[in-house]
């Protein structure tokens, strides 16, 4: 069947990277950089980890059928729209001096 078989080393490398990133995120969370910055860094690392899992463990990178990737990214994108538009409300509840 047309599926790639990756060398075992590849999986171990990805796994090592994931573990490394996990340590990094745990350590960085202790470094006081301001709540926002800490959160953003943690989320960036989480996104990298997620991407690694998706590309290698879940074979998105080698999937012959690219639609799967499109579908998944779309789902994720949708979630961001969901957050974003909801926040237009919450982050601006005090705008215009209107109903306080």
């Amino acid at each position, binding site marked *: 069947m047309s599926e790639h078989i990756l060398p075992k080393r590849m999986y171990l490398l990805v796994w090592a990277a994931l573990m490394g990133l996990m340590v990094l995120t745990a350590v960085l969370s202790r470094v006081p950089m301001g709540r926002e910055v800490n959160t953003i860094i943690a989320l960036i690392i989480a996104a990298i980890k997620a991407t690694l899992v998706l590309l290698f463990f879940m074979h998105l990178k080698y999937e012959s059928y690219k639609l799967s990737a499109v579908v998944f990214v779309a789902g994720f994108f949708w979630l961001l729209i969901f957050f974003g538009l909801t926040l237009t409300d919450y982050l601006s509840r005090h705008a215009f*001096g*209107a109903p306080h």
Partner: protein
Amino acid sequence: MFQNLPLWPERASSFANNVDALYIFLIAVTGFFTLVIFVMIGVFAVKYRQRAGGRATQIEGSYALEATWTLIPFGLFMVMFVWGAAVFMKEVQPPANAMDVFVVGKQWMWKTQHPEGVREINQLHVPVGRDVKLTMISQDVIHSFYIPAFRVKHDVLPGRYTSIWFHAVKTGTYHLFCAEYCGTLHSGMIGEVIVMDPSDYAKWLSGGAAEDSMASTGEKLFQQLGCATCHRSDTQGRGPNLAGVYGKQQLLDNGQTVFVDDNYVRESILNPGSKVVSGFKPIMPTFNGIVSEEQLLSLIAYVKSLGVPQNAPGSNRPAVQQGVTAPNTASKAGNAKVQ
């Protein structure tokens, strides 16, 4: 002729004409397009009806037409949006010197209270020709305060103040409805809004049972509940001196600032631990379950009456408080009379 069948609601507030004009515009535009569609369907259906031996003329489409019926409606839609938004923005920005009325909704009645202390149930008396701002809260579920003749409506939420304002232009008695489904007697949660001449209003206001103004009720509560033991009028208390805090930016112990408004004062009383004033310990006990919504409104009125800083930083609408700041809120009725 249509005495038993009115087809248009009364126009009793300054918004009514704006809303009705927009409504008529929308009817005109959509009516026109509806007509166009109906006529086209009718004409095509008759003119191109199936005939023996006839052939349909195949047309694949036309970019010009597609562009036309994309862009023209889109343009009209934008007009609708902008116009609607303009009407709306007026409705959500209460003018600076509006007179305050407070509304508490509960299953299934409306309780209103004037700063002078007069309370009403399922009624609201207001003077004609004044801007009136309602500060509203619910004791239980979500309700919605709706006066069709004024074209105003806003949901009344538990746990948070919302507000609307209006400017009545016609004396009379108008429907007050609860418009958000709230349980068994939702349809019974109705009342009336009575718009009076300013002089009648003043008479009505003073004719009510001699009640304390909300601020002085609040002051009494402030003593009874023991707030005064910590919040003293000097700087020695265990809590901050509340004089002049209303309407200003308060610095919190996490370095952020908040604007002291009704919702903040309410939160400070019910959930003191969540926003702690810089320089103080989070020792204030919660009064959740101890004070009612009406008492809260009085306490807020009292805190407000302790004065507003003259040129507090960040206080972008100092004038809003004007009407209620002065301890002599009663003079407002007098104001109304003069106008």
